[in-house]
C-alpha cells in the first residue's frame, strides 16, 4: 500500500535513486550539494509533501543515477533522517538510511572568518565529533561548529 501512496505523490521511477524524508527547508540545499543542477538525467522533485516522520518533507528522484556511498552520505549534514531507495525495473532493490561520515571533505564552510580555509583557495576538511548532535570541527583552525551554524560551501 505504502509504495502506491508514494507513486501517487511523485511519478514512478524505472531505474535510479530516490531520496526520501528530506526536511522541506533543506530540499534545495540537498539538490545543490549533490550537484543535481548539473546532471543531464531526469530529476523529479517533490516538496512540502506530508510526512508522519518529519512533518513536511521533500523527495528527489534521479533517473539512471547511482551514487557512491560516501557521496550520498554527505547529505546527512542537511537531512539526517533521509532514506535512500535504489530502484531497478520499478522495484526497490536496496534501502538505506544516510549516516554522517567521520570526515567531511570540502562540503561545508568554516564559520571562523580568520580560518585559513576562508582566505586561501583550498578544500575544507571537518572532523565529525558528535554524530547525534551534529557537531563538526575544522581540521585547520580547530574550531567547532554545531548544527545550526553549519553552512554548505
Amino acid at each position, binding site marked *: 500500500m505504502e509504495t502506491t501512496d508514494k507513486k501517487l505523490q511523485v511519478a514512478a521511477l524505472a531505474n535510479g535513486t530516490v531520496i526520501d524524508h528530506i526536511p522541506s527547508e533543506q530540499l534545495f540545499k540537498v539538490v545543490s550539494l549533490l550537484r543535481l543542477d548539473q546532471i543531464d538525467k531526469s530529476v523529479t522533485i517533490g516538496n512540502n509533501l506530508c510526512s508522519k516522520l518529519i512533518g513536511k518533507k521533500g523527495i528527489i528522484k534521479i533517473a539512471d543515477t547511482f551514487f557512491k556511498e560516501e557521496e550520498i552520505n554527505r547529505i546527512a549534514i542537511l537531512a539526517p533522517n533521509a532514506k535512500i531507495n535504489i530502484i531497478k525495473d520499478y522495484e526497490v532493490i536496496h534501502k538505506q538510511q544516510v549516516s554522517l561520515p567521520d570526515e567531511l571533505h570540502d562540503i561545508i564552510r568554516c564559520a571562523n572568518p580568520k*580560518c*585559513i580555509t576562508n582566505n*586561501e583557495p583550498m578544500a575544507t576538511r571537518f572532523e565529525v565529533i558528535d554524530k547525534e548532535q551534529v557537531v563538526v570541527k575544522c581540521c585547520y583552525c580547530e574550531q567547532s561548529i554545531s548544527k545550526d551554524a553549519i553552512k554548505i560551501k
Partner: protein
Amino acid sequence: MRNESLVSITDYSKEEILEVLETARLFEKNPNRRVLEGKVIATLFFEPSTRTRLSFETAVNRLGGRIIGFSDASTTSSTKGETLKDTIMMVSNYVDLIIMRHYLDGAACYAAEVSPKPLINAGDGSNQHPSQTMLDLYSIYKTQGTLENLNITMVGDLKYGRTVHSLLMAMSHFHPTFHFVAPDELKMPEEYKIYCDKLGIPYVEHHDFTEEIINQADILYMTRVQRERFTDLMEYEKVKNVYTLRNAMLAGSKDNLRILHPLPRVNEIAYDVDDNPKAYYFEQAKNGLYARQAIICKVLGIKIED
C-alpha cells in the same frame, strides 16, 4: 601533514616531549653546536613577532645554520595576492626547514600539508604556538625536576589564552592537578574541561584569586587579562586588578613554587614580584632558545649527544 613537521604540541607523544626536553637540557649546557652547518632555514613571519623571531633566529645561528626570510607580511608577495601555498612552494625550493608565523588560524596545518620541506609553526593566529608550550614545559621540568604530579594553577584569561590551552593538553600526560582562576567572562572553555574529565584529570575552578590557592601551587601560570576581550567594559574595570599577583600574596607559598608568564605582561604581575626568587618569567623566556634549538633538531632528525 608531514610527520616531521611541528604544527601543534599534540603532534608529539609523551615520549617525544620528554626527548625534546632532554635535548633542550643539553643545549642549555652548551648552546653552540654547529649541527646546521651548510643548511638554510627560512623564517617566514607573515605577522611581526620580534620576540619569537629573534629567539628562533638565535637558535639557528647558534646551530651554525643560515637564515633567509621576512619579518613582516607587508614586505612580501602575499600582499600582491600570492597564495600561502605558492609562497611555501617557492621558498621550499631553497631551504631545508621552514619556520612560519601567520596571522590566520590553521595556516600552519595547511602549510605543513602542502610543503615538501618540514615546517615548524611559530604561531598561527589564535590557534597553536607549540614552541611556546615547549619552553613552558622545559621551564616546569627544570624548576620542579619533574613534570609528574604537579599542581598547576592557571590565572587570568583562560578563555582566549592559547598558551594555557596548549599547556593543559601537554601536561595532561603527566598526572597534574589543575586550578583555573578566572573571571566569569574568561573561564576555561567547556571543551578543555571535558578533555580533563575524559582523562580523569582533577581540576578546580575558582572565581577569586586567593592566597589559599597560591599556597597549594607548584606552578603559578599567569596570563594577560586584556581589555579588548570584554564585551562589558565595566566588567573589565572590576576584574582587571583582581587577578594581579603581588609579592605579599606569596608569603605562605611553597618553596618550590615558580611563577610563569608567557610575556609581555601588562599589570597582572606587580613589579615587586620581580625580585622574589620564585619569579621565573625572565628565565622562562631564555629557556625558549634551548627549547627551540631542541625542536629544530627534532624536526630535522638530528640527534644531539652530550
